[in-house]
């Protein structure tokens, strides 16, 4: 009976993963159906129940995501993102190479604290505008924004959904990410920036036809609601300060984010229906459903089987095992959504910890693999898909072949740099 449960729960989870990968059905619908199926079969076979399913959901992750989504939903219509892009355009004085670096830095910094998709959705349209009035192709800028936001997001606890998941599961604080992840990401990011600068050197060497036009862009006019923008930025700044000390104060990051959202809502009192519409409920449902499915895998005993397989592999030196995780997870993340992979691997790594292995470095390997792997292909991350979809409405659409030519090298370089640093840092542990 137990083997039967293991096999069935396995089939439900991997069947859902395949359906998510095929993209014929909306991923949240697949996940909801899969989680309901898991509970139903679990009840019949006696390995799972409603109570266990609810307790499998990591509400900390959902709360942190929801809080940040509400803040961004309020910041979006203020024009703040356009404002930053216009400042970058003016500072570049219309020089492509300088514009390339400035837009890359802005996108990265924003995506370290905000959702990558939102950042890219808001920066990409102004990027198209700026490159068109300069008379240059928007391709290098759009692709680099998506790629660099994927890489940069790995640096912080709130930068990337896999990080939120890992941080919550492993009890890692915001500062842990700044100490253990940020430095490695910084070096990898710089590597990626130079690589992209090199790969796009032909495009960036073209002289813009009208470089003076960007100087006539007026940043002040982009801010539709300066007072709202000011208030949200104050709240967001305070939230980031609290992230630094959340561990010392014994506050979960989700409480920080939700408190910030509540304060901003009370202070600004926006049209709440508009804000709620912008929150990506389907993403939250997707996460919740995945938690329930993986909970089923755990209770059926399927995960401990996988842990046993991994245990054999972990007989190798722990540092090499970590590097292996970086590359395997990166390869998987390049072709499938990195969220289900992360959610599935978290209990596996936890299981390995129970066998006495030092798993602290493995969490970072998982974070690097999941984050950097997303750059590899056009479907590797939501930010990539968004940029590609936007570009389809322009005269210069991004093809998946072009993405491979630029993204795959980025994935290799960032994973390579991360692996080298990883080996240097964890050799002594």
């Amino acid at each position, binding site marked *: 009976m137990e083997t039967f449960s293991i096999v069935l729960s396995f089939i439900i989870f991997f069947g859902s993963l395949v359906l998510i990968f095929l993209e014929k059905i909306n991923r949240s619908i697949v996940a909801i159906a899969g989680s309901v199926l898991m509970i139903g079969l679990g009840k019949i076979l006696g390995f799972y129940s409603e109570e266990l399913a609810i307790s499998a959901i990591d509400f900390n992750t959902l709360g942190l995501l929801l809080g940040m989504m509400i803040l961004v939903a309020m910041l979006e219509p203020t024009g703040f993102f356009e404002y930053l892009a*216009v400042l970058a355009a003016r500072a570049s004085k219309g020089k492509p190479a300088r514009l390339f670096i400035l837009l890359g830095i802005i996108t990265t910094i924003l995506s370290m604290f905000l959702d990558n998709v939102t950042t890219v959705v808001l920066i990409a349209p102004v990027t*198209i505008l700026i490159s*068109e*009035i*300069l008379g240059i192709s928007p391709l290098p800028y759009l692709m680099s924004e998506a790629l660099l936001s994927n890489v940069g997001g790995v640096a912080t606890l709130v930068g990337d959904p896999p990080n939120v998941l890992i941080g919550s599961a492993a009890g890692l604080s915001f500062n842990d990410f700044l100490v253990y992840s940020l430095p490695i990401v910084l070096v990898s990011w710089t590597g990626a920036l130079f690589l992209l600068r090199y790969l796009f050197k032909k495009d960036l060497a073209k002289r813009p036809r009208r470089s003076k036009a960007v100087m006539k862009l007026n940043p002040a006019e982009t801010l539709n609601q300066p007072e709202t923008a000011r208030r949200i930025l104050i709240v967001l700044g305070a939230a980031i300060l609290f992230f630094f000390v959340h561990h010392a104060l014994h506050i979960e990051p989700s409480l920080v984010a939700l408190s910030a959202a509540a304060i901003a809502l009370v202070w600004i009192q926006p049209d709440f229906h508009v804000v709620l519409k912008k929150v990506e409920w389907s993403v939250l449902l997707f996460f919740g459903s995945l938690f329930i499915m993986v909970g089923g895998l755990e209770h059926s005993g399927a995960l401990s089987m996988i842990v046993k397989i991994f245990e054999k592999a972990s007989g190798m030196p722990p540092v090499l095992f970590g590097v292996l995780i970086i590359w395997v997870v990166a390869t998987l993340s390049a072709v499938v959504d990195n969220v289900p992979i992360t959610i599935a691997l978290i209990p596996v790594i936890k299981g390995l910890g129970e066998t006495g292995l030092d798993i602290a470095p493995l969490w970072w390997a998982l974070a690097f693999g999941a984050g950097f792997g997303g750059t590899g292909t056009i479907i590797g991350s939501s930010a990539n898909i968004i940029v590609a979809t936007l570009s389809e*409405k322009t005269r210069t659409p991004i093809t998946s072949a072009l993405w491979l030519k630029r993204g795959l090298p980025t994935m290799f370089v960032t994973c390579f740099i991360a692996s080298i640093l990883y080996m240097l840092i964890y050799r002594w542990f």
Partner: protein
Amino acid sequence: MYVKSCMKTHVVSVLTSTTIREAAAIFASKHIGTLPIVDKNNRPLGVIGIRDLLKLEMPDFINFVSDVDFVHDFGAVEDTRPSAATLKKTVRSLMRPVVTVEEDCGLLRAYAMMLQQNLHDIPVVSKDGKLVGIASRVDIGVMILKAWEKVE
């Protein structure tokens, strides 16, 4: 009151074999905003408006950025021209389905159709479907307003 009473009867129209370059020249020389495309029997097949031609030059960003007040200089966009290859294509590639009214269509009905379908000019056809005239919003509108003079 019918559309017949206010339409222009000298309609400029072209065949589908006309190139975009030729069509652009006709728009300019005749100073018109809408060009019906007809078959050999003068039956309307489609229509192109001046905005369909201008779309070839419009920047992509206007589809993404709702408010362009802060862009005081469109820069390189201002001197972007369609490629020679684009201009060589026939009007068929830009043609939109045509909405027509018959000569005895009421003025308010014609005007309402133009509002709802966002048309600036509406081609007028005879009972047997042949193009006999074209009326603009102003042609129809002023004709409606003229009737107000008689209100006691």
